[in-house]
């Protein structure tokens, strides 16, 4: 055996685990997903094979269903509103804690992490309970300040309610990342600005915010991908009914026969999740492009 041959085998040995992993857990399921969206599967053909190839027919059916666009709109609202408030509140809290200088600031900061640490089944159920239209604490609270009760989880208000819960859930993540970003901004920049007569507001907009941009980008992109695929909190609170139906809950319900329909729609679920994947991929590429432009 020549030396170079042995080198080649060693290379194979080193690369193989990674490739096997990628193929088994990424390439294979992804191709299966796309293949499934191109064949019309039902429970029988899922088990025994022989699902007919229908090309892009199912994609066409889905995108021409007016309800689909309603769901896309709801997904967009859910994602954008959640992200905006998660980021804004997270940033405000991060700046607040970064200024610090008061007792118990670290204890308080730790307490803000609680939503992140609780299992979603616990927090989701608690939100559902608080939002109970007949006996929930939120309506009791509204009552004490003289406001009428809200039917939080009704089909019309469901989107607002799950967004509120999801914002609460996402603030700690934003807080932690932005806080660590703030710690990387040299303090002398702020001192210099203060000497030049910049007030706290100007310091924030001209120094803190621009210097946080790379960190903000990462936070928002991760938040976006995470929020797009949220199923758990929505499902626990409303089963994705009414306006709280998003692409992710639709795909989940279709894939496992959950929610209103016990029919498993293998192909339709694959179509929706492929669309979801493409959207996330687009934003991922956009992020890479923006980052590259920033670097150069």
């Amino acid at each position, binding site marked *: 055996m020549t030396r170079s041959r042995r080198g080649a085998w060693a290379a194979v040995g080193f690369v193989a685990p990674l*490739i096997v992993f990628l193929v088994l857990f990424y390439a294979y399921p992804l191709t299966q997903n796309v293949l499934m969206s191109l064949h019309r599967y039902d429970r029988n053909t899922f088990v025994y094979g022989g699902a007919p190839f229908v090309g892009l027919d199912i994609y066409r059916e889905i995108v021409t*269903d007016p309800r*689909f666009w309603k769901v896309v709109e709801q997904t967009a609202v859910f994602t954008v509103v959640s992200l905006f408030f998660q980021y804004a509140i997270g940033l405000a809290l991060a700046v607040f804690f970064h200024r610090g200088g008061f007792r118990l600031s670290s204890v308080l900061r730790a307490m803000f992490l609680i939503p992140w640490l609780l299992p979603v089944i616990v927090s989701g159920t608690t939100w559902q309970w608080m939002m109970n239209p007949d006996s929930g604490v939120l309506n009791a609270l509204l009552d004490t300040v003289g406001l009428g009760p809200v039917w939080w989880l009704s089909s019309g208000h469901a989107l607002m309610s799950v967004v509120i819960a999801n914002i609460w859930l996402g603030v700690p993540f934003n807080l932690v990342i932005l806080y660590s970003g703030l710690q990387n901004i040299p303090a002398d920049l702020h001192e210099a600005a203060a000497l030049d007569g910049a007030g706290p507001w100007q310091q924030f907009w001209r120094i803190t915010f621009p210097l946080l941009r790379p960190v903000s980008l990462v936070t928002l992109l991760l938040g976006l991908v995470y929020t797009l695929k949220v199923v758990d909190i929505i499902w626990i609170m409303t089963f994705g009914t009414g306006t709280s139906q998003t692409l992710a809950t639709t795909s989940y319900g279709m894939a496992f026969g959950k929610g*209103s329909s016990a029919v498993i*729609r293998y192909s339709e679920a694959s179509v929706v999740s492929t669309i979801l994947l493409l959207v996330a991929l687009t934003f991922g590429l956009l992020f890479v492009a923006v980052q590259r432009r920033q670097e150069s």
Partner: protein
Amino acid sequence: MTTTTQRRCRAIALALTAGVSLAACGSSEATPEPGAGGDAAQGSTTATITFWDPYPQHTDGSEWDEHVKACAPEGSTIKRSSAPQTDLFNQLTTAVKEGTAPDIVVLDNPMMPEAVSAHLLATADQAGISTTGVDENLLGPGVVDAVAYGVPFGSNALGLYYNADLLESAGVDPASITDWASLNAAIEQVVADGGKGITFSGVTGEEGVFQFLPWFWGAGADLSDLSSAEAVSAGRLLSGWIGKGWAPKSAATDNQSAAWDLFLTGEYAFAENGSWFASAAAEADFATGVIPIPAEDGGVAPVPTGGEFAVAPVHADDASDHYANAAAVIACLTEGDAALATNETLGYLSAKPDVRGEQVAANPLWEPWVGPVEGAQGRTTELGSEYVDVSASLSKAEQGALNAAGDDAAVESAFKEAGSVF
């Protein structure tokens, strides 16, 4: 330089091939052919018998768990596992695909036609399952094209529980409730007396539909036409309760247990719920009773049959042995003395009239439930495997109706628009 690159490429190509061939192993080879052979009479029971049921609430060591395991034939042990209804059906689908299906599955009755049309189940004949002596209306969901695929061991039904204390204080005689008008009048009287009206489960999915069907059928509506005036009328009844504040708004998200818990607070006069709560009702902090659910214009509304089927999934390898396992265990659970224990353990009424008679004789709590069970209508009897689709649409219509909270026009459009796959 080139050689290094070439070598590198070759290495990656090799690794890729390895990965792909590994992935290819994932696709199943041993998928059994639909309707393949196998006969319980020619097989013999094996050392381990696998048993799946949808009762995760009956944990290891519970009465039901021990009852099932006691049914293991000589020389065998039963391995029991549980999952909620839908998950169980999904797991069964995958298991048949992979050739790892259990010997016995306890499957919810409205899933039967779809399981049969997907060729997941062996016929009762193949699996040596006896269906003699079982009521026809209960057996219905498991019969497709005149072939039986398993046996229901018991059944449950829906009725209208009432809080006798509340009714008495409001001066309502439960016997006077014979149609929707008298039911509404009774609720109104209780509400005027300071009580609350009625709890039910309108949660999205089959559970809510199960509870909606007595009103739907009681109005004279038919599953083949969800937009009929009768269907809308049923929707308006429930919608009106929510609109008037007689029923909790949470009915739109309550499952049957949550609806039951609300009734147990003692604030509500009525609760539409199942026979499985009969003994819990007797132990409530207040006096309870139960009446049949009334139809719109009087008489008793047909309720959907509740309960599960014991079935044997299709096997490709050693089919006869698997079916022999199923035959032995299912016979033990549904025949002879154990049949009574099976139903009493689960809180069901037996699917066999004679066993049911014994249950009623031993426990007068069962008496009001015999009528509803005997008059119950199979959900899938009319539509077969298409039922699941119709049920999904009906669930959406019901959600729309409950959310309309008494807005008649909105209820009507909810029933007219039901049908999109989203």
